[in-house]
């Protein structure tokens, strides 16, 4: 499903040049659950941004679903992204001014899904995430675990092929964290490919494979399953 080879990304400011990705290559198959681990500054987040089509690489190849996307412009990337990828963030990134229902509804709006169908799909996913009773609350009225469940609901509401999770349990206590990991595992079992960046060895054990990074390169790959 994803094949990157020789991927490079360099950040330049006026005086400093930081190599974030240094000729990185790996592959993720459809239905896999992969953890990416490594110390701060090793390039994990840069990798996730490129995989999420939020940013473009400076060099190398990125094949997504059989298409070379490394040189897509912003519009094409946005189009591909909204149809295929769901995001879960450490800090949830819900829009404070929108209710639970409206937050989850947002990706469907941008996909151009009609109102009645939107309502039905949002309700289904909220039900599944057991957050239906909070549908009219605002994010700040929810606990961290509940907020992340909403974020996951939002990530999956458009049935993406790929979910990118950036330290999804980073802001949660362990029981809420386990709950979210269980949700991701369930989604993976239903066929969704998941790539998760994490610091937590505990969380990484939910995945099939761990890619360890250092200074923009992969160091090891552990296959867990």
């Amino acid at each position, binding site marked *: 499903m994803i094949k990157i080879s020789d991927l490079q990304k360099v950040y330049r400011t006026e005086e400093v040049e930081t190599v974030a990705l240094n000729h990185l290559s790996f592959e993720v198959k459809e239905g896999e659950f992969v953890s990416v681990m490594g110390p701060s500054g090793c390039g994990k987040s840069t990798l996730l941004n490129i995989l999420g089509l939020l940013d473009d690489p400076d060099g190398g190849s990125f094949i997504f679903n059989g298409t070379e996307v490394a040189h897509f412009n912003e519009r094409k990337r946005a189009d591909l992204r909204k149809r295929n990828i769901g995001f879960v963030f450490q800090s949830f990134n819900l829009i404070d001014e929108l209710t639970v229902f409206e937050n989850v509804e947002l*990706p469907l709006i941008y996909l151009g899904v009609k109102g009645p169908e939107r309502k039905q799909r949002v309700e289904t996913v909220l039900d599944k995430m057991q957050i239906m009773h909070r549908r009219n609350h605002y994010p700040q009225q929810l606990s961290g675990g509940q907020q992340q469940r909403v974020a996951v609901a939002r990530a999956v509401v458009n049935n993406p092929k790929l979910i990118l999770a950036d330290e999804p349990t980073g802001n949660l206590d362990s029981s809420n964290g386990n709950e979210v990991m269980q949700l991701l595992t369930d989604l993976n079992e239903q066929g969704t490919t998941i790539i998760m960046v994490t610091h937590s060895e505990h969380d990484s054990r939910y995945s099939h494979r761990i890619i360890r990074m250092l200074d923009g390169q992969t160091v090891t790959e552990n296959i867990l399953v």
Partner: protein
Amino acid sequence: MFKNYFKIAWRNLQKNKLYTFVNITGLTVGIVSCILIGLYVSEELSYDKFHDKADRIARVTMQYTDGTTINRAALTGTKVGPQFRRTFPAITAFARTVQYSPVVSVGDKTFNETHFLYADSAFFSIFTFPLLKGNPATVLAAPNQVVLTETMAKKYFGESDPIGKTLKVNNGKDYTITGIARDAPENSQIRFNFVASFSSMRVSREEIWWTANYVTYLLLPHPQDLTPLQRQITAYMQTDPVRYETGAGAKLTYFLEPLTWVHLHSTLDGLEPNGNITYIYILSAVAVLILLIACVNYTNLATAQAQGRTGEISIRKVLGAGKGQLFRQYLGESLMLTVIALLLAVFISIQLLPLFNQIANKSLSSASLLQPLPILSLLLLGLLVSLLAGAYPALVLSNIRLMSILRSGFRLSSSGGNLRKSLIVLQFVISVFLMISTMVILQQLSFIQNKKLGYDKDHVLVLPASEEIHEKYDAVKAAIRQVPQVINTGGASGTPTYVEWTDGLSATTETGQKNFTVKAIPCDADFVKTLGMQIIAGSNFNAADMHMLDTTDNNKNFRYTFILNESAVKALGWTPQQAIGKTVEKYYPGIVRAVVKDFHFSSMHEAIGPLILFQDTQWVSRMYIKVSGKDLPGTIARLQSIWKEYAPHYPFEYHFLDEDYNTLYKTETRTGELFGVFSLTAILLACLGLFALAAYTTAQRTKEIGIRKVLGASLASLVGMLSKDFLRLVAIASLIALPMSWWAMNRWLQGFVYHITLSWWMFATVILLALFIALATVSFQAIRAGLANPVKSLRSE
């Protein structure tokens, strides 16, 4: 999608109260200014356009010279209308008009009336003043016919039909009512309560070029006939027979002004005072500038606030929102704000109209606002404002690079900062410019108000002198003097604040024959003393000299007595002392009794020219009564009983001389007040924007402030640091505004012969004031930030 946009816009407005308040207030005030000024301007521009034949009507002005001065007036003698009509085929019809303020009575109803017009019979066919009753072609066809306005008909006759009834003018002649006209609109240079047939006046029987008291209008077949006709008139006035007839010495000619051009462009007042196109331009510019300030507030705040919205924007982007969608969303927000502001502005404008009318001396109504055209223009204005103010922030917000915001948080780029700074400078250039202008205008107005006029206009009561008063003139004066608080009393024709009587003065002097135009005041012996005019040579009129006005034997022995002003004496080439006892001529000869110090007898726009006073009580139209100022109500009551006794058939109405004086500067005072109001608005708006912007930038630097505090920064140094940037911008703006306002105000002051000189302290005061206001605005935020507990701000990061 739109519901979603709307929802989030609405919730954002609720969440950021300061932001919403500043923006809605700013835009509302800006739009209110636009609406009010727009109504004012469009009313001024619409003057006289309601006549069906407006583009075919011309007003005749007269220009004559006595060799030394050129005199111009929008007045003609009685001959111009009929003679031109006979001579030039391009004139279809003419109407001579003149207006008086007589006493009108119907039965026992007697009132002092104004706007009593006399006009030729073609009046109602040339102008579109619709008649509710009567035939436009015949209502003024015969002598002693009069047309009333609807309002006057109600006032005198109530619900009954006035047609065929009569009214009495000045307790003399009866006029038969032949028609009822709809009230003349406000935007008309001709306003009337009554229109009587021109043929009712004795002067109409004789056609003469001189004695120019009449405003003459001509109707042409086509608008384009005006220019050729003008050429024909100029040529005609130079032909020998005409020159012979008008007098060899005087060069007399006439100019045509298109009717719709008169109100805003002509320098000559006719029946009503004119407006001024310059003030129209200035006011329109002020409206645009205020709106610009409000737009800048929006732009600045929205971009500053973008920082707080980067989270939302990036999430939307991650979830698949396109640039276009985001752009539309944020533009939608500014549209929503504008629509709210627009509705509020319309509501507030309607509430403010009475107050505005008072300041602007108009009677604009909200009905004129709720017409298709104004509503359409308002909608366009709203669209323009939301685009002007919202496009840039929307562009910035929708263009934020995703990568930069996902984790590191979004920092406003320095280029955006520069734009904001430039916009602040722009706002303060406008504000400081308006403040300086207001300051100079107010200074000049107070200069006029307090200038020594050469006579004392304070505590002088003015009362009308009717025929009944004339009959017992000395007895009335003696009675007035009996009133305890009365210091002196005298009578004259017209008002000394603006002398209209124009005459010719000639004398044989050591350097030859002198002949020139003067202003003249016919008065009684006590007038000069009553008004406190200063005699610098000779002695005042003597009432006994009245017998020299000897009309027996065909005026053979008729002699005037004169008092000349300094300028007149100078024009004759004499010193004041030399002039005493000399004989000069104002058609009839007379002796110079005294010379008065020059006093201002017209507006400060004009230099003091030669003037003569001559003793002749038959022309006295007003009694001037100098009072001590104590017990005014009692004094007025006493005077009223005197008037009741001596002039029982005339209503008693009084006013003070300084009121006459103030009406001379109505336009300036009005402009000054309007300017004051709008410049205050501008500076308030600019400060409001500054205040909110300071709040945002301070919030942005919370962490920095915290760290500085932990490291030992004092409150003063923090306030200094935070205020410095803004103050610098205001200082730059002041420097830009300074030469602009200097230039503009200098030009404005040139319009006055007597004016203040611009001095540095006026500019310094305003600039210091602007800096102070800005400092107060910004330091409020800075002090708050400086006093906050640093632990809190550091922990939150």
